[in-house]
């Protein structure tokens, strides 16, 4: 029932023996204490657990750890480089793109993938990109502005 897997998480190689049923999100939160990736629904609907696997935004509650064997994973903790915030992290701070902040890591990770493929998005495109991330508090409005802030900064 156990498998040995190796996943590169935020640039660091992690080898662990996992049960078949262990979810990637639990692997990150429980084994690696990377608790910035949150669980909001556990059924792939809310987007709070969004991370990057091999460069793409995916929901880590719907992936088994075993399935991520050999993959490169980036979590919210791995987004800032050398202490400098990613433009998206800066944007969510400057534009008040958060309230309780529980959805924020997942939204930032979704947006980071999106901006890789569309560096100069329209507001509508940003909203489409966010359709898999639920925010109960803050109205999405400032979240869109935060992503626009980051896009502008990344293009400058």
């Amino acid at each position, binding site marked *: *029932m156990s*498998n040995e897997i190796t996943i590169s998480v935020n640039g660091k190689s992690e080898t662990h023996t996992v*049960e*078949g*049923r262990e979810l990637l999100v639990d692997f990150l939160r429980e084994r690696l204490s990377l608790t910035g990736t949150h669980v909001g629904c*556990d*059924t*792939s*609907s809310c*987007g709070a657990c*969004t991370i990057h696997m091999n460069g*793409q*935004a*995916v*929901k880590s509650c*719907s*992936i*088994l750890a*075993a*399935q991520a*064997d050999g993959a490169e994973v980036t979590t919210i903790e791995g987004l800032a480089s050398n202490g400098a915030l990613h433009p998206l992290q800066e944007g969510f701070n400057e534009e008040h793109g958060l309230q309780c902040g529980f959805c924020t890591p997942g939204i930032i990770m*979704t947006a980071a*993938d*999106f901006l890789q493929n569309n560096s100069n998005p329209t507001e509508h495109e940003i*909203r489409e*990109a*966010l*359709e*898999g*991330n639920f925010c109960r508090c803050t109205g999405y409005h400032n979240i869109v502005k935060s992503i626009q802030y980051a896009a502008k900064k990344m293009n400058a």
Partner: protein
Amino acid sequence: MNKFSWYEAKSVEDAVKQVNNTVSEELYLPSGKAAIFKSGGIDVLDLVKEGLIQPKTIVNVRNIPGLNKISFDDNGLRIGANVTLAEIEGNEAVKTRYAALHEAVAHAATPQLRNMSTIAGNLAQRTRCWYFRSSDHPCFRKGGDKCFAKHSETGQNENHAILENDRCVSVYASSVATALLAYQGSVMITNGKMESRQVPLSEFFVAPDQDVSRENILEPNDLITEISVPAPDMNTKSYYSKQVQRASYDWSMADVAIVAQMNGDTCEKITITLGAAAPIPIRAYEAEKIVLNKKINEERATRAAKVAMENAKPLSKNSYKLPLFESIIKQGLLEIA
């Protein structure tokens, strides 16, 4: 989730040898020994999380070499079983030649799930009927003795079927299937003896009155390896519309795909398919007849839309689906005209 072991299949042959059951059979008659396939794994994990199936082994087919290619030539479109919805959405040939398919794929699930979900997994996913998804409701599809949704006083059936709904009233979950059926796509299946067969989608889905335990023909060792779609004629026009309660990420209340070969404003070939209308995606044959070899005008479009709903038997809470389907069928016909 129960404890299960994880098997990484190295080839199609390896995979079909490992597997001994389908998700459907395991739901209907649990074996306790099931080894089942997963590709993107979203739907399988949902079912395991709810405790609806308790597999002994999950066989991962996601990394089998050769199943992740998408190509287009004069013979049409070939989509490997493991191609993700995101890859289909981004494919140029799909965008330009299969507009209705592109539209359906782009509105399936969410960006993160489209990055994970594969086309074969999308087609083989089980219904989202909330009774089916609840381990506390043993319905027909799970070997139980009733359809909870159908009950005229207690059933919560606003999302359910209006056509072919005599026994189970669930609707098929995949809206991509609606579009693929309209393009008359087919599924390549390999069985446990490594024999391959090509099955048109029109024969792939299984209606409840044929067999309520399943939604498709897949047998225990069957693995989908490829989806193929014929090349559309240059005069082909297509339409797809999915009606939802909210624009972001939502399950279909009614979706319609139309693929038609037009000669001027005359319709020479047409398929009209309906999703979220019946337990499986269905063709509206009678409606097609109204416009076939005719000019599509307002009056014919209206009549075709009416005819498509002629046999509808709405349940206690879903009669709104009739005007909804009518309006989008009509709009679709007028758009391709």
